[in-house]
């Protein structure tokens, strides 16, 4: 019988931590989807060999400390202004791979104007949109993406659409715009979903490297501490309640429209 210590050899390694991730312990709550997305992003940056040319724009929200975890160049944007900052970076350094990493409180509410105009201009950036239907960092308040009748700390009786409006489907809005090239909605709760999400992110990165226009990847996520559940319960709740309203899949996959040629 083979002993465990005989298996633990470098030549038998099949999965390990990416070198692009730093050794800092992440501050996220146990089971937070941010950690998974950071990890697959770092793996892709390592696999595609773009660590030197990657520039990230961090949001305000839980992912504000992303620069501590992924070892690439980062800029910290004001709340919701990550696409505007990314526009400046990519226009001055067209050879860099620029991505923004935003939550739903950042991208869908205060930053809704920025993201729509950045996508409409077809800036050559990758937008990663983490949608957990809540303001996670500040204590679980209602966000624009909060589901109907969902209980949050500012809607203790559930979100009332008469008073607060309907949950905002940012990805569907952005897919209408001619500047975007790849718009998709993914999740990361099971091994299969994580692998699928990684393929989508890889495609988004490749589109940006090929200068095809804005790639927009939404990841439907959990906020187990904001939802007051265990990580496993939160994943189940997300599958039962979030997926019917935010169905997964590619919404758009093409090249951005070319300007109409002048005669």
């Amino acid at each position: 019988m083979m002993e465990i210590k005989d298996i633990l050899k470098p030549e038998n390694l099949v999965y390990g931590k990416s070198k692009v991730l730093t050794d800092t312990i992440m501050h996220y709550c146990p089971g937070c989807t941010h950690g998974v997305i950071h990890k697959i992003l770092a793996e892709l940056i390592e696999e595609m060999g773009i660590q030197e040319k990657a520039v990230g724009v961090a949001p305000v929200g839980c992912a504000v400390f992303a620069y501590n975890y992924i070892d690439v160049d980062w800029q910290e944007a004001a709340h919701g202004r990550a696409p505007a900052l990314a526009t400046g970076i990519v226009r001055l350094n067209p050879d860099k791979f620029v991505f923004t990493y935003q939550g739903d409180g950042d991208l869908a509410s205060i930053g809704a104007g920025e993201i729509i105009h950045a996508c409409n201009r077809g800036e050559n950036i990758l937008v990663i949109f983490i949608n957990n239907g809540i303001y996670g960092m500040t204590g679980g308040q209602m966000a624009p993406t909060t589901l109907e009748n969902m209980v949050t700390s500012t809607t203790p009786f559930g979100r009332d659409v008469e008073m607060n409006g309907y949950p905002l489907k940012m990805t569907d809005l952005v897919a209408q715009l001619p500047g975007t090239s790849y718009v998709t909605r993914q999740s990361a709760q099971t091994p299969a979903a994580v692998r699928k999400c990684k393929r989508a992110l890889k495609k988004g990165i490749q589109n940006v490297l090929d200068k095809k226009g804005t790639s927009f990847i939404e990841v439907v996520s959990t906020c187990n501490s904001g939802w007051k559940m265990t990580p496993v319960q939160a994943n189940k709740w997300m599958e039962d309640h979030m997926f019917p309203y935010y169905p997964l899949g590619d919404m758009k996959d093409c090249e951005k429209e070319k300007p109409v040629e002048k005669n």
Partner: protein
Amino acid sequence: MAKIKGAVVVDNEVCKGCGLCVEACPEEVLALNREMNSRGYHYSYMENPDACIGCSNCGVVCPDACITVYRVKI
């Protein structure tokens, strides 16, 4: 017949005991330890190491990247 055997190493101090790897494991190898690490989390460990097939599902879902997976053909 070639048999595949795997082994998982969990970084006990980094693990936050979220239990996602326990849920993702198809062979019920992993479980949360009764012991705690220095930060007060019940870290994940191989409760049933002989059943591990090294599929790396636990490593893929781990949000803290604290799982390393090894696999060997016997």
